């Protein structure tokens, strides 16, 4: 007798819903266990986290601040993953987006009066991200170079380049040695709504809707879905596979670049360290957890942002490490990863048949 995985014969809706729920429950238990070992009360901790993330206007705003870049990069990464193109370069695309936005703001101030400066900055972010993602896309379609590692490497190049700029030529001469560019002109500041949360949230939600619409309701989106499911089938139906991949990946990078533009024009108002705290990598998790559905991404992004902000709060209120939030994120993922198998396969016990029968 042995255990065997057998492919399911129909999509199990119950599995699709139960698996994330059970995973979340499992992670809550695991974290509770961890907390108890360290002498903290799990219920108190969880409520402190929830209150921290949502309980006050300030907390909620901070949650939004973290959620916005996660949403944008999550959406970008989701498009790429839809095509089975493993874009691990969201971090670098975001960074260069921020650099481009900063560049436009710092140097084109004279030429772009009023709101045009902000618009130009955002466009710059879009373009930079598109370009930075376009390079690995071209390498993949023309030379079949594996995108996972190339996009990863390009993150470092982007981050180092950005560092070079704000430590070097773009450094604020009046900055008292603090590494960072000078502050942007006020017409390049992305308007804020509440606390530090800016209108990027509206743009992000809008983008989510548009992306969903493109994927589900347009011819191009349909072609992308086919390419993602089977390049052979796409080719056989006359779809231009390579061209579409490059376009879609450029779009993916553009969204990540826009996220970076949001960060510099909306949050920091200058180019400095800490532009991204790993948003690009967390984006991959957001996209995956949302099962690449653009409508689910804002919610998942919000949830992960809440864990992060909640973690910060917990540190101040209960003296627990802020890293709590990160640990929880990790702990949610493991059961989900394990559980993802059950959406496609069932566990069966198989009894071996003997080879030959008498008579």
């Amino acid at each position, binding site marked *: 007798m042995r255990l065997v995985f057998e492919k399911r*014969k*129909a*999509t199990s809706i119950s599995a699709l819903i139960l698996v994330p729920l059970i995973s979340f429950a499992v992670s809550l238990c695991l974290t509770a266990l961890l907390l108890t070992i360290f002498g903290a009360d799990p219920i108190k901790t969880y409520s402190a986290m929830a209150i921290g993330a949502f309980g006050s206007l300030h907390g909620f705003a901070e949650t939004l601040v973290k959620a916005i870049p996660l949403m944008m990069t999550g959406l970008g990464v989701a498009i790429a993953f839809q095509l089975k193109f493993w874009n691990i370069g969201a971090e670098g695309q975001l960074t260069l987006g921020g650099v481009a936005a900063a560049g436009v703001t710092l140097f084109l101030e004279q030429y772009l009066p009023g709101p045009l400066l902000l618009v130009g900055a955002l466009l710059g972010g879009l373009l930079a991200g598109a370009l930075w993602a376009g390079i690995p896309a071209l390498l993949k379609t023309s030379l079949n170079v594996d995108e996972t590692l190339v996009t990863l490497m390009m993150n470092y190049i982007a981050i180092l380049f950005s560092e070079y700029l704000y430590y070097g030529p773009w450094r604020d001469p009046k900055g008292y040695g603090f590494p960072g560019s000078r502050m942007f002109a006020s017409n390049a500041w992305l308007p804020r709504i509440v606390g530090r949360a800016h209108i990027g949230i509206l743009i992000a939600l809008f983008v989510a809707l548009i992306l969903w619409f493109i994927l*589900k*309701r*347009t*011819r*191009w*989106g*349909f072609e992308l*879905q*086919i390419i993602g*499911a*089977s390049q*052979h*089938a796409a*080719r*056989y*139906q*006359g*779809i*231009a596979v390579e061209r579409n991949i490059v376009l879609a990946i450029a779009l993916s990078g553009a969204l990540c670049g826009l996220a970076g533009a949001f960060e510099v024009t909306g949050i920091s108002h200058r180019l400095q360290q800490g532009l991204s705290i790993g948003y690009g990598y967390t984006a991959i998790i957001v996209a995956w957890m949302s099962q690449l559905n653009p409508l689910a991404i804002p919610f998942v992004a919000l949830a992960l942002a809440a864990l992060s902000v909640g973690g910060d709060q917990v540190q101040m209120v209960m003296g627990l490490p802020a890293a709590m939030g990160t640990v929880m994120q990790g702990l949610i993922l493991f059961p989900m990863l394990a559980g993802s198998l059950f959406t496609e396969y069932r566990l069966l016990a198989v009894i071996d*048949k003997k*080879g*030959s*029968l008498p*008579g």
Partner: protein
Amino acid sequence: MCAQCNTCRLFLSIRSMNESNIPKVEMRRISKSFPGVIANDCIDLRLHKGEVLALLGENGAGKSTLMNILCGLYRPDQGEIYIDGQQVEIHSPRDAQKYGIGMVHQSFKLVDSMNVLENIILGLRNEPFVPDMKRVRKQLMELASQYHLGVDPDACIWQLSVGEQQRVEILKLLYRNAEVLILDEPTAVLTPQEAHELNRVINTMKQEGKSAVFITHKMEEVIEFSDHVMVLQKGRVVAETSTSETSPKELARMMVGREILFQIERKPYSPGKAILELSHIEALRDRGLPALKDISFSLKAGEIFGIAGVDGNGQRELAEVVTGLRKSIKGTLKIADKDMTNKSPLEIIREGVAHIPQDRASVGAVGDLSVASNLAMKQYRSRPLAQGIILLPKRIVEFARRLIDKFRIATPSPNTQVKFLSGGNVQKTILAREIGAARSLIVAVYPSRGLDVGATESVRRQLINMRDDGLGILLFSEDLDELMQVSDRIAVIFEGRIMDILDAGKIDIEHIGMLMAGMKTEVD
């Protein structure tokens, strides 16, 4: 238990009492079925030491299944295996290896990036922790010269020609002391020169007391290589004889022998103008070897033009050239008098050409998408399914429902993902989509492969309906029954060439069988 078996058993037991020679390998009453098909039906096989046996039959006759059972990849539902007179259980390739049985498959089990020596010892448990490669090399070269299997031990597999790779596979078996070698369609990938060399190798093996079984559909091979031949048809042994006592003609008859079936009801044959014209088309396989070597024919509107032949003789490449998925290196292609040589698939689709591909699961249909999406995949670019760049989901579902009804596709809903449908229904989906969009020509490649009787019926009916409506159909099939029931004319393809084109009404089964096996018309 098959009714014949008690009779067989009686004969066998009488015979074996008289036989002083215990066979090296004996398979008794082997039966194996898969869902929906009986692959082996009570088959007896005997192989003596120093003997070469040919297993002859069409596709689906059960030859590969039988040999897969012998080398441990499948388990028989019924039957026993005896090696040197002792009954044995073979549950895995390792067991088979223990008993001295090894198989060279059509797709080689070699690691491309490693060299010959490494591939030879891969997986061997009795090699020491640090294998003495000098010893391995010496042993290998000895075997190589003994059996005329010249090969460069340091070459990497990707650097070798297919013929050389085959030699490595054979050497692998010999290195593991195989006494019985099974070869699956060995000359399918060889040049005539290499095939001759293979013959030499097999003869040497015979002299050394080894035995071989090879699976084939080519008459030439049977005559040249084997001592005995066993003909299989639809899972049963229909003939067993020593090669010297038979002739290619007789073998062909045994291989395809059947009653002639009546053609399916249809309108009288009145072909229109030429829809598809191929002129001296040449094309290459993926690996660069020639696949099509001077193909010319003309297919007319209102006709079903069948292509007969065993899979692997150029059918895939021909279908791909006609539908724009493969470039031809010479020759011209015309669709409805328009030159479409080497145009893109999209342009050919726009000429109203439909394609029912060989790869149902990965090319024809997309498993992860819904039935409705799959049905829409050809016509989504324009009305009524789309308005400009926007898709109209309601129209798509309507369109899908109509096709599901018309073609009787069994699916819980239009939104069910195709991967959950049975093979027959996947094929119906593909057919529905393609036939729905076809305006001039339909290229159908093995459309009823793996389908049950009902689905097969409906596929053939659909194709005839289209033909009656005035379209041209290019039908590739391995099933002669199907071709004869459905086609107006039949061409036989062998090793990239059209052997002959025959009128379906005047078909001589034996003649077709011989053409399929590569023998040109013999003067009686």
